[in-house]
């Protein structure tokens, strides 16, 4: 049997003032007091989004509520090929096809239902779609309904949802994520208020992080 290796970790000794606890406590309390005063005087406002009145614009590639795209004449682009329903790991897409009057298109969905309670928002349906008929770029991240049945959304509802880029201008106030670099510069102690680097990447270069999952369209 091999002898167990012991690694001695040198713990940092507390000095006298730290041992009394009182000095570190007051240091900590000065940190919280700084936050309190800064918030009270409004100098670090706008960290929060007042949700129903203001809404975040989600980063590009964010998989929100699904939508069905339209042709130029306003009809549904989907050809009811069942690719999305087949690939869906949650089995939440239900399609019934019917004949399209245009013989070149052949099929279109009579029923296109998505059960949003079953959906896991993996985005495979978007990847699988051969004709860019289903997308998840609506940016809608709040999905709510009074009844269970209402969470199953139908073709006409899916067709009406717009991409985020279109209705960000009018329906939603352009709030977005707080402007992080400028925000941290304006505060009294940037060490504390500056957000983690991960969040910053996400804001400035959203595609870089999400490109592996985002639909490779356009």
């Amino acid at each position, binding site marked *: 049997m091999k002898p167990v290796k012991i690694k001695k970790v040198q713990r940092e000794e507390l000095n006298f003032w730290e041992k009394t*606890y*009182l000095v570190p*406590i007051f240091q*900590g*309390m000065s*940190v*919280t*007091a700084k*936050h*309190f005063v800064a*918030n*009270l005087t*409004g100098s*670090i406002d706008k*960290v*929060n989004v*007042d949700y129903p*009145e203001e809404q975040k614009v989600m980063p590009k590639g964010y998989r929100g509520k699904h939508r069905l795209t339209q042709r130029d004449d306003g009809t549904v682009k989907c050809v009811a090929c069942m690719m999305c329903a087949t690939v869906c790991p949650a089995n939440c897409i239900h399609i019934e096809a019917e004949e399209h009057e245009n013989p070149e298109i052949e099929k279109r969905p009579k029923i296109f239902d998505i059960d949003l309670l079953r959906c896991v928002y993996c985005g495979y349906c978007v990847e699988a779609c051969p004709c860019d008929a289903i997308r998840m770029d609506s940016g809608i991240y709040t999905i709510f309904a009074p009844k269970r049945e209402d969470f199953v959304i139908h073709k006409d509802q899916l067709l009406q949802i717009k991409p985020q880029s279109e209705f960000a201008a009018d329906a939603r106030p352009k709030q977005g994520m707080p402007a992080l670099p400028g925000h941290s510069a304006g505060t009294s102690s940037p060490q504390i*208020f500056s957000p983690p680097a991960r969040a910053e990447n996400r804001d400035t270069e959203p595609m870089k992080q999400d490109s592996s999952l985002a639909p490779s369209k356009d």
Partner: protein
Amino acid sequence: MNPDTLNAVLDIGIVLAKVLFFILFPLSLVPLLVWLERKVSALIQDRPGPNRAAIGFVRLGGLIHLIGDTFKMLSKEQLIPRNVHLFHYLAAPVIIAGVALIILPVVPFADVIHLPGGKEISMQALHLDAGILWYFAMTSLMVYGVVLAGWASNNKYALLGGVRSSAQLISYELPLGLSVIGLIMTFGTVHLNDMVIAQGDLLFGFLPKWGIFIQPLAAIVFIVCAFAETNRAPFDLAEGESELVAGFHVEYGGMLFGTFFMAEYVAMVVASAMIATLFFGGWQIPYLPTERLIALAPVLSQVALAGAAVVMLGLAFLSYRFYAKYNGKFKDIRDKEGLIYCVLLILAAGGAFATMGALAMFGFPQEWGGPLFAALAQMGAFIGKILAICIFFIWVRWTLPRFRYDQLMFLGWKSLLPIALANIFLTGVMIFLTGGLKG
């Protein structure tokens, strides 16, 4: 009616009014403290805090949430788990809330009022010779509520919480009691009003002779132990939610839980009142003892009214700034809320100025107005001190993480107890050197 019966009726009325005040004051402070707790914690954590609930346009920065909270608590179904020991289960919140409420009446809210007719009104509802000992006696009874709640709930988490809490309360009662002994030695009394009167003098001619300046060690020990006694962070091990769900009140719901919740805040008010009384001069306003307060009442009332008017104008400016900043957010009358408050505050400031003018024109009714003004000013000062210490409690809660159990015991038995004992010794030495109790 002959004057004797009139006098007796008046006396009974005064006693009833005092009893009502001492019950209603902590209870009415509870919702305010809940609001403060939520708002201060929010601001410390860079959140806006409660600001949604509204009656019409009135939001008052989240104060309306309190009404909602209260109705929710009162209208909830009272579920009682099947396997509890019903009598003790129901007795526990009553004990805790009752004990918390019964302490405050010994605290003096102002100096004894000498009315012109030779009548004296003491601003304590409970005139006990025991004084501070009443506080110790009653806070120790709180342990029973906690233990009973934990045991009667028939739940292992509740039991663990109760056991932890009782161990904590018992071990912190010792330094709590010992820390005050130094204070009793210096003031030579256990009566709270006498202690406060003794704190009215000046130290070295400029420093108010408050307990914190003459007994700093005792103040630190007492404040730390008061945190532990009220079961608040960083000593809220009894409800360490990561380990014990909610601790001793895990099986309580609805208004029974509400009683615990209320009792916690009442205990906080009581602890603040005790800290203020013992170490921050109670109802004493620095540099203004009662006689000078009564003598200067005509001037000081004008100053107080002017100060109130200035504060109201400042608040009006702030609410106008709030209105200008968030105008157009809701697109209904809620947008105008700040403007409405601004107008109301300006009107109130105008009222204060009008009262000033009226006082200046008709003269200040010194005979009964002087003592009344002094009492009101002292009550205001005392309530202000209580609120400041409550905010300190809240501030500490949202700063410090919870102690580990062994750290808690270490702090109580190995740090605070020796400090309290050393403080008694030091006080004794000082009294011996300066010669006598009244030195």
